């Protein structure tokens, strides 16, 4: 039985069926990438996994536990195990970076502020943001904002990390850094699900690739390094893969880094 098994997710916007019986499986520590044309339902699918998007129907088995995604109580359960990083980050503008990280742990998980701050500082250190703890989000660069958003998500110690286009706002260097980070996290047992347009990132990083089209799963490729070879996925990547040359996690010993 796979670690995560999502089945039969249907989402409707009025008369439109945005998602039609969509699903996928993933093992623990997998990096799963959703790809597909604009409007195919990638963001919507991601949002269903953390209860931000109401679904018509849908089932999720995670770690042996079944969640009826259409049940009103599912949002709480989903949020206990998943965290999401939005494309626009959604950092709280009136709070310092540190408080952005400690807010949910202290007010939702009721951990002590001192302990949360200790962990937050360690996490910021790991992401190269040690000196930004007391800065407001507005004073960060795009790449820094994103790392703060990732750090904020990691504070929840999620089993499932969701990212919507994590690399779209970044220059190639930063893209590679994020790739390295995601791979490290996955190695530690975190399951990562990302939406991405950066085909280079997708093919080098993914253990699974899910191709969405018109709200349906058109094809699934599996196996790191092989997932992109599935014919439908390869065909999609060929027509959409502008930056297939970037290898995000390939060369850590890059001399200028």
């Amino acid at each position, binding site marked *: 039985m796979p670690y995560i098994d999502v089945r039969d997710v249907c989402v409707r916007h009025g008369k439109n069926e945005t998602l039609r019986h969509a699903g996928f499986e993933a093992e623990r520590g997998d990096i799963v990438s959703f790809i597909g044309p604009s409007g195919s339902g990638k963001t919507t699918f991601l949002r269903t996994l953390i209860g*931000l998007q109401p679904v018509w129907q849908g089932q999720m088995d995670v770690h042996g536990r079944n969640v009826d995604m259409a049940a009103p109580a599912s949002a709480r359960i989903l*949020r206990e195990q998943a965290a999401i990083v*939005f494309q626009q980050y*959604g*950092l709280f503008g009136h709070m310092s970076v540190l408080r952005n990280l400690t807010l949910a742990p202290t007010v939702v*998980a009721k951990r002590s502020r001192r302990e949360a701050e200790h962990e937050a500082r360690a996490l910021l250190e790991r992401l190269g943001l040690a000196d930004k703890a007391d800065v407001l989000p507005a004073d960060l660069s795009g790449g820094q904002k994103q790392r703060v958003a990732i750090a904020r998500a990691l504070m929840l110690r999620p089993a499932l990390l969701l990212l919507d286009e994590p690399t779209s706002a970044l220059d190639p260097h930063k893209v590679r850094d994020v790739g390295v980070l995601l791979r490290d996290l996955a190695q530690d047992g975190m399951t990562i699900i990302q939406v991405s347009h950066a085909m280079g990132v997708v093919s080098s990083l993914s253990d699974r690739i899910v191709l969405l089209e018109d709200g349906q799963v058109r094809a699934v490729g599996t196996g790191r390094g092989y997932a992109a070879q599935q014919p439908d996925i390869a065909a999609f990547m060929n027509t959409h893969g502008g930056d297939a040359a970037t290898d995000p996690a390939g060369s850590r010993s890059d001399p200028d880094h």
Partner: protein
Amino acid sequence: MQIWSWHGFFTYLGSPYIFRGALITVIMTVVSMMMGFLLGLLTAVMKRSQHRVLSWPARFYVWFFRGTPLLVQLVVIYTGLPKLDIRLSVLACSIIGLTLNEAAYLAEIIRAGLNAVPTGQIAAARALGLSERQIAWRIAFPQAFRLIIPPLGNSVNGLLKTTSVTSVISMEELMQRSQILVQDQFMVLELFSVAALYYLLMTTAWDFLQRRIEHYAERPYRRQQKTAAVEAIELPATTQDAR
């Protein structure tokens, strides 16, 4: 009859009767503003709700109280409540009328402030597991409040002068008391100059207070700018002692 009597002017300026009228004006403003803010906040939140049972009454309330003159509202409250066997003082009726009227305007100001908080932050807070109440108090209200301080200040300034409308239900505030003395002694210009001076004093005091509140609300933001600026200046000289 002389055109202007300095003696009259200073007599009225020092008159405890007029001074107490001004005090009543201040009290009515403060109380109506605070209650109006709470009612306005509630109305704004209701109006933004997706549930029509909440948004519809709020919508109606704002529509009605912004669409009818305060003068009419006051008279209706003053003459209507006794018919329901509710007997309240003139001051209570005045404050109720001012509060209901002001809340309708404040609701729209507060609503605009809440709308200005990026929806991405709300979604992020939700995904982090915060309850709707926690999102409101910790994410939405603080950021909205900072934005609406200037228009709120405007409302306080306006309300200080709008209180004079309560004179129609014989509320003895600053304006009414000035008019009472005018009828007695006919020194229109002197009396109204004194009244104007009092209003100026009150609005000026409020201007000062508002600046303090703005200063306070900007504190977290200002501190950041300052440290950022200090760092920018000091960094080249002190590169070796990076904290």
